[in-house]
């Protein structure tokens, strides 16, 4: 599993079994949500049909099938280009008939040299395609009816030609060029195959890699948008029919060379064959989507069906009947799959999981350490009405307060009175965790963007926003989608919690309800490279480097616990619990000056929220059927701050019992005898004067293990 996963596996902390690791609904959503699934499903089904046909046709049918493919495949290529461009060409079979019979008449009855006959057949096809193109592109006629009419017209013309020269064209007149086209080989490969695969590769590259191809796709996807973007849609439309016609002409020439068919039914029914093939290949009837490679596979399947009916000695009527049925099934699939795929992926995406929480601790004892108090209520506000939702804050050496808010700005309030606030930097994302690095850059976790550094002049620069993608994962988890909190280690590494690889920052409530191990902890090396140090975390949130600099504390909001991850020393790479089964949902953790730690609860557990944790299916229904503000979630509007020591013992608890001033505290930072209170939903930052007993000699804002963090004389 080491090849597939990165970092320490934190999944066992959820208490779930191995089956709980797999979110089947979500995995399905990931799969069907892939863009390539649009064509992959019909193609897979087509291949199954192809394998069945092959089992009837005989395994050595290959060369025969490829002979046919080199002629009919050209029609599939042409038709695919037309359909990607939003049209349809039913006249391909008639153009084949016209080109095939005309080339035989030109050579055998009119005695024209083959040097004229060969390009003439392709040109004739292009000319007939031009008629289609002009009628549809310039005159604005509907593709279906236009090409249905030209199918009859071109076919009628071909039959008239055949009737007029029926005896002359049966002359056994041969020419070396016919011989080469029929039996010639290039490097041992039949010429017709070489021509076909050459055309296939060129058209595939042109359709997928050239401006011309993008124009066709744009016109087929949305004509109006294409026009508004300056694409010459009339010219593009004419062009695709000319190409389709030219390829049908080439196909007719190869057919004439291989079979020399001179009967009036040549080419009849090929439109059904080509249409079935491309639809089997997942080319959408609605336009804008399709690949000539897949259409070629579709054609191969259709040819195998034909060979199977021949091999089984089935009557003639079976083949068109099977084709029509296949066309019907795949057309319905195209319509319904195209329509419901994204919808189904969206529905299956949210797939709540199971975690095990311990029994809800009783914190209602009025004499206990958790007893309610109003200490935080008294803290005077900073930036009241100016700051909007500062999730975290940082205090500089000069005493200035830096507070990122949800508009992406970072405020700077100069101490000691903190009345004068200015926007110090603009990040563009949801600013969450704050920390100082050793060079006194402000390091920010910016939700939706990654980790950024702001230098003392307010210049913002990217630290990291990507990690290596998990191998063999359908879901692209390479982006640091939701950097939440971070801290800096003695070696300059930045440890950041990415609370969900899946959920957008704006949808954090979903993560609280889904309770899946979607999060991870990432280390950003000073050289900018990244590695995942812990994976399968449930809502990892607070990150704090320990005082000795040898470990980081990781708060798992979803699991109501704090763990220690050793980053150096003899236990490096190990994880061990610090606090388990907390009565609330832990948020940011920060160092205290006395060698302990401060932590805030973003929410408190309640009997109802605990009950819900046990029933993923109820949460699933809740997500589906209720608006987000009606969801049953933990009690969010509390303001609980606690202090704990290295052993996880709770030393002190502070509340705003009024729930008016600081209804939700998400982070607390200690600086020079004061505790600064930040809250992601608050319109202020609080500055709470600590009791003298809480004040120690350490600078909590300095990177542990550095000179700046050495204990100094206590400020009292």
């Amino acid at each position, binding site marked *: 599993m080491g090849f597939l996963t990165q970092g320490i596996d934190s999944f066992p902390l959820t208490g779930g079994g191995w089956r709980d690791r797999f979110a089947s609904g979500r995995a399905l959503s990931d799969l069907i949500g892939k863009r390539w699934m649009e064509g992959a499903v019909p193609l897979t089904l087509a291949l199954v049909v192809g394998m069945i046909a092959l089992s009837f046709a*005989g395994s*050595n*049918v290959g*060369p*025969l099938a490829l002979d*046919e493919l080199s002629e009919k495949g050209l029609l599939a290529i042409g038709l695919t280009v037309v359909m990607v461009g939003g049209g349809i060409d039913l006249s391909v079979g008639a153009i084949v008939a016209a080109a095939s019979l005309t080339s035989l008449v030109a050579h055998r009855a009119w005695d024209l040299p083959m040097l004229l006959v060969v390009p003439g057949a392709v040109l004739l096809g292009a000319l007939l395609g031009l008629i289609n193109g002009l009628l549809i592109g310039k005159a604005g006629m509907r593709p279906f009816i236009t090409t249905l009419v030209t199918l009859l017209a071109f076919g009628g013309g071909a039959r008239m030609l*055949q*009737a007029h020269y*029926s*005896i002359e*064209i*049966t002359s*056994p007149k041969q020419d070396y060029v016919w*011989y*080469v086209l*029929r*039996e*010639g*080989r*290039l*490097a*041992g490969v039949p010429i017709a195959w070489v021509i076909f695969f*050459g055309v296939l*590769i*060129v058209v595939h*590259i042109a359709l997928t*890699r050239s401006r011309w191809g993008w124009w066709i796709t744009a016109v087929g996807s949305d004509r109006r948008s294409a026009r508004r973007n300056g694409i010459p849609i009339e010219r593009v439309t004419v062009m695709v029919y000319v190409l389709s016609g030219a390829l049908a002409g080439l196909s007719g020439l190869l057919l004439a060379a*291989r*079979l*020399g*068919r*001179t*009967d*009036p*039914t*040549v080419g009849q029914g090929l439109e059904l064959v080509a249409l079935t093939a491309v639809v089997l290949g997942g080319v959408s009837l609605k336009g804008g989507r399709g690949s000539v490679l897949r259409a070629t596979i579709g054609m191969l399947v259709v040819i195998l069906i*034909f*060979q199977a009916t*021949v*091999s089984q*000695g089935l*009557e*003639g009527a079976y*083949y068109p009947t099977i084709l029509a049925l296949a066309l019907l099934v795949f057309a319905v699939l195209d319509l319904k799959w195209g329509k419901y795929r994204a919808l189904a992926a969206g529905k299956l995406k949210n797939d709540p999981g199971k975690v095990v929480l311990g029994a809800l601790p009783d914190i209602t004892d009025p004499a206990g350490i958790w007893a309610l108090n109003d200490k935080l209520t008294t803290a005077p506000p900073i930036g009241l009405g100016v700051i909007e939702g500062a999730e975290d804050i940082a205090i500089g050496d000069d005493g200035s307060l830096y507070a990122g808010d949800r508009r992406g700005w970072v405020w700077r309030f100069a101490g000691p009175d903190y009345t004068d606030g200015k926007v110090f930097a603009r990040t563009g994302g949801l600013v969450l965790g704050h920390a100082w690095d050793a060079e006194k850059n402000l390091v920010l976790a910016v939700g939706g963007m990654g980790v950024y550094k702001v230098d003392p002049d307010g210049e913002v620069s990217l630290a990291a926003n990507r990690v290596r993608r998990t191998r063999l994962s359908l879901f692209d988890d390479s982006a640091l989608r939701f950097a939440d909190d971070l801290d800096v280690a003695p070696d300059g590494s930045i440890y950041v919690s990415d609370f969900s690889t899946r959920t957008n920052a704006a949808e954090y409530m979903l993560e609280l309800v889904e309770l899946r191990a979607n999060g991870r902890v990432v280390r950003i090396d000073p050289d900018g490279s990244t590695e995942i140090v812990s994976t399968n975390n449930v809502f990892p949130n607070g990150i704090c480097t320990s005082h000795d600099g040898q470990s980081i504390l990781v708060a798992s909001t979803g699991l109501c616990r704090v763990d220690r991850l050793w980053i150096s020393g003899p236990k490096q790479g190990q994880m061990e619990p610090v606090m388990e089964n907390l009565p609330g949902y832990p948020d940011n953790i920060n160092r205290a000056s006395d060698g302990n730690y401060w932590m805030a609860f973003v929410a408190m557990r309640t009997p109802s929220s605990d009950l819900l944790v046990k029933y993923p299916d109820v949460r699933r229904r809740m997500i589906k059927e209720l608006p987000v503000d009606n969801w049953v979630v933990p009690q969010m509007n509390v303001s609980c701050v606690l202090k704990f020591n290295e052993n996880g013992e709770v030393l002190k608890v502070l509340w705003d019992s009024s729930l008016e001033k600081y209804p939700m505290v998400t982070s607390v930072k200690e600086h020079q005898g004061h505790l600064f209170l930040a809250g992601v939903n608050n319109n202020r930052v609080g500055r709470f004067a600590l009791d003298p007993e809480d004040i120690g000699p350490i600078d909590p804002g300095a990177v542990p293990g550095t000179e700046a963090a050495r204990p100094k004389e206590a400020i009292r």
Partner: protein
Amino acid sequence: MKVLKVLGIVMATLLIVTGCSVGESSGPSDSGKKSDQVFADPNSTLTDTVEKAVGSMDGKRVAFVPLLLKGYGLTSNWFESMKIALEPMGAEVTAYDANFDPQKMVSTIDQIIRDKSADVLVLHNIDVGILVNQIAAAEKAGIYVISVNMLSNRLGDAYVGPNTGLAASDIADRAIADCKAKGKKNISIIDGPGNDGASIEWVTNIERQVKEAGLTVTEVAHSNYDNATAREIAATTLQKQKSDLCAFMVLFDLNSLAVGDAVQEAVGNGLVKNGDVGVYTFSADAAVCDAMDQGLVTASAAYDVTGMGAAVTATIQQLIQMNQPPGSFHTVSFLGHRVVDKTDMHNYNVACWVNQ
């Protein structure tokens, strides 16, 4: 476009290194040796002869690919003839119905060649050109090819069928005589798709005879051997020419019935008088004899359809017993025919045959 450049260079290199070649054409192989034949020694006891003849056919596979089998008396007849003669000797006779689909016929034969699932291929060629490559490929694969009923641009090991050109001349002479008696000149020809051996011989020989007799061929129309098309063509021609028309020369008996119906209808509508327009055709099964009796069809060049099955059967055995490499000899064997009408049709065994 870098990819295209690389591709171009690769292709050019391949071309230079390997050269452009064409497949080896199959030519006739060395003439066979007498000792390879089943009856190399002319002196043989009766028991020996029978044993050798039967033994030579034991396990042989004959594939019959007609352009239409189901519901078609002509080809069903030949198929039955082959089966009743060859199956008791231990040979296997299989029919593959092409159902008038040239593509299907080609693919069927391609598969037979690929699988080498036959020792003798009996082809009912749909047009003179289309099976040229298949005949060559089959011979190369060691399969004898017998073309039946219609000649092709490439001879297989044997052709067995009517001399359609001679039959066309004879029935044309009969029509010309009738027209001259009526004092009329216009003759209309209805053939198959126009590109098959029978159509070509039918049209060219009738045109020549009519021209020599000083009469006129007013049109040559292609029915594709489809009854409804044949009937439509006849109705339109009658509408145009009315009593000026003297005769319809319809290729193959089946379509002549539809043309006879069209003439009868025109008589009913008063467009032409009864007996004004004659219908002449090629081959006469029991249904055509009935039609001649009713006056729907005037005369037919009846040929030995029932004998053809036997002739093919004989040719198959000869090829096997001669044991020469396929493609080393080419023979053409014609069957007899006779022009009959309602007065004498029952006098000849080539007419009024019934389906087996």
